[in-house]
């Protein structure tokens, strides 16, 4: 099973907020507009949206890490 996790590069992030718009189930914004992710693996139905968020981020601040875990 491959698990996908979101990592945000806090240096690159400039609080555009597109990621939270595209993936509100996994990303919320703090009071200053910066994304908070909880580091848990994404449910499979959210992975496509996560890829889109990573692609659309104007600062390329989102990284998706894929990990395969043996059953």
């Amino acid at each position: 099973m491959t698990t996908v996790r979101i990592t945000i590069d806090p240096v690159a992030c400039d609080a555009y907020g597109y990621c939270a718009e595209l993936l509100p189930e996994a990303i919320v914004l703090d009071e200053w507009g910066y994304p908070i992710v909880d580091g848990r693996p994404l449910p499979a139905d959210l992975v496509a949206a996560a890829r889109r968020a990573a692609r659309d981020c104007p600062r390329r601040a989102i990284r998706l890490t894929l990990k395969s875990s043996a059953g």
Partner: protein
Amino acid sequence: MGNDVRQAPPRGALHHLLGHPTDLSGHIDAHGPLAVALGRHESWQAALGANLEASGLLGRGGGGFPSATKLALARAHGDGGTLVVNGMEGEPASDKDKVLLTRAPHLVLDGAQFLAAACRARRVVVCVPAGRDGVATAVLHAISERSSARYARVSEVIVRPPDRFVAGEESALTNWIDSQTALPVFRPDKGVPLRIGKRAALVHNAETLAHVALIARNGPEPFLARGMAEEPGTCLITIGGAVAQPGVVEIERGTPLRDIVRLGTPVESFQALLVGGYGGSWVGPDDFGTPYASIPLRAIGAGAGVGVIIALGATGCGVAETARITRYLAGQSAGQCGPCVFGLPAIADDLARLAGGQSDPGLMTRLQRRLGQVNGRGACRHPDGAVSLVRSALSVFRADVAAHERGEPCGQWHRPSPLRFPGPTAR
């Protein structure tokens, strides 16, 4: 010399950092020649690694990371890299590295030479902040002594990064050496080593390297003979605050906190101790007997951090001092990550209100929320240090916090601080 360069420890050798000769000839008399094996000397390098591993030496720059592990990582990632001596000591309350680099520079530089040889680095770069010219002069003098005597094996240079708190963070340091930007780099995977140019960089605190120099020469036994079994050795602590004799002392790991403070001769009974520097934690009277070592300190919600212990006298106010420190830390942000850039000043604002007796009903909730939001969300641990400081203050100074919440000021907010801050003084 052979493969086993480890000599039997001189009889009665006591592991200690302070009290060694400062000049090169005195240093050689006391410790013997610098016996490093350059090139692909696998067995010598492995032996050094084993000695470090056996000694259990932890980094003395605040991270507390096992030095042997750090060395193994550097060794695995290729030759021709750089050994960086971190003499930045950005923590304003700490003086230990200044003292060490001025009084025993050869010990620090020898440690760098040993590690450089072990990971086949091609140069040693010593970092002393711009403006700290006394220390820089001492280091330069030592480097030129070594170069004239052809004592050093790997080339040694000194560089002067800017004097800012975050400039001493290890990725900020390598970033500066590489591209003149003293800003931390986002490193989600610490297994990938730092780089300068295309080559690996190994960064070590000056005090750690001094310990390495002795362990490499004398083996791990003298180090293990001091301190605690779980955390051996000695370390340097800067004692400050309400003490008559502030300064740098060398103590064994595991010494109870109150015994360390006694070395500085407290002037009055102290109500709390700040352990680990401005990014550390407050410790209350119930825990003054805690041994100074990572695990016991972590158990009480503190951390060894940088070797600093500040005593807050009975007349001081923990809330006021925490507010000042947080304001200082907010100003020292690298300015790269939103939660730190916006969060720390917001937290500092609320603490200033609290200290000044101008609290409002939502302040505590707001403060707690922001502490949670800021923690762990920067590229470096700068905001985390501020959060742990504030959280520990809210716990240790519970009564004072409640009084301030009710609007009672303490008067300390308007008096000069017993703590020192570089630049324009904090309120």
